């Protein structure tokens, strides 16, 4: 049975065009390759 209030919480406001720039800057773009490089670098330092 669908609970309306609970389902409604799953919907979030959509980003407007004016907020594109903030969205890009705030996006976490770290990928697994970055993590790997960082790990290799730390291992060598030790």
């Amino acid at each position, binding site marked *: 049975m669908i609970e309306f209030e609970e389902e*409604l919480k799953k919907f979030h*406001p*959509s980003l407007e*065009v004016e907020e*594109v720039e903030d969205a890009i800057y705030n996006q976490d773009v770290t*990928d697994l*390759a*970055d993590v790997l490089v960082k790990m290799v670098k730390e291992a060598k330092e030790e």
Partner: protein
Amino acid sequence: MLCFKCGCRLSEKNFCTGCGADVGLYKKIMYTANRFYNDGLEKANVRDLSGAVSSLRQCLKLNKNHIDARNLLGLVYFERGEVVAALSEWVMSKNIRSEKNIADDYIDMIQNNPGRLDAYNQTIKKYNLALNYCRQSSVDLAVIQLKKVISMNPRFVQARQLLALLYINSQEWEKAKKELDKALKIDANNTMTLRYLRETEAMMPSEEERIRKKKDAIVYQSGNDTVIQPVRKKDMVGMQTIINIVIGIVLGAGIAWFLAVPAREQQVRDEMNEKYKVVSEQLDAKTVQVDELTTQVSELTQEKNSLSSSLSQVQGNNVILEANDNLIEAAFLYINGTGDEMAIAQELEQIDEDYLQTESAESFRNLYNALKDSVSEVVAEDSYNLGYEAFRAEEYDTAIEYLDRAFRYDQSNGEALYNLGNSYHQKGDTDKAIEIYEQVIELFPNTEKARKSQNYIKEIKGE
């Protein structure tokens, strides 16, 4: 594939030929990222956009520089109506690779059409407003806003899902299913859509019930609304049809009675009033004529009375003249000694009795009486004889004339009176006969004539 340390192109070896770095793990990460990209591409090809987004995000978590994955992710976002998210991915893609990047075309497609971009932005604002309405329990306003959003951007999956949720909440299953079906055509494997759809189909009436309902109603689409029009039942047969016909006839008769009859009565009343008016006018005209004629009658009556008075005076004068003439003639006959007493008597009888008794002079009356006395005996005797002879000769009119004169000149002559009655009796004038007989009985009682007269009266009366 480039070395993450020196940027040299890597070979099939697990180390970099340029800097000697161990790239075995790195290569595995890149290969895994490529597998997620391929998976995302396959899902996008079959319109599993949600699955494609998931796979492409996994790809980008492994390799943020995967341009194709990022561009495809932006394209998938754009297809689902999430324009800002798409723009975001394409801008980052262009930032990673500024040359020979298809993201340029995508960004130009939107930016070169400011009206379109503004329309997308308005769509997003309205969606956010509708979501706000939902949280404020203004469901009707939210539905209106979401319908506008969908009309402006039909591929906005989230808007359709939210609208479907509102329909589910208000138990409008058909509408909810319609929105969900359209959402599935855009994003074929969206878990939220599928869950809502399963719930909706579970709550909707069964196929059998829908078929039965369709028989009772015609369902068709009018814009965004589904119109259900009841079908008129055609199974009214037999007694029900007859009852309906009878009710119709009764209603028709009632309407005719309450509408037509008063109109007819009013028409008849108007006709009667018109006739009454005509008759009244005629009556007034006749009344005027009667008044005029009455006035004329009154005038003529007065004129008649006046003329009658004048005539009476003239006649009075004539009576005087005639009476004088008759008396003078009678005196002349007597003085000449003609011996014709009957002629003298006839002259005297022509004198008007009223004039003689009332208006005549005393000398006139003295002369009259003298002449009458002188001839009365002879006249009475001659008249009786002539009358009796006429009676015997059955000349009753002549007999009556002479016998009447005989009795007038001699009141003691009972025979004359008795034979006068017999003359009337024989003539057939029974009333006059009875009158005379009664005079005989009265004037000459205890006589043979009285006894006979009494017998004749009884005979006439049939006693």
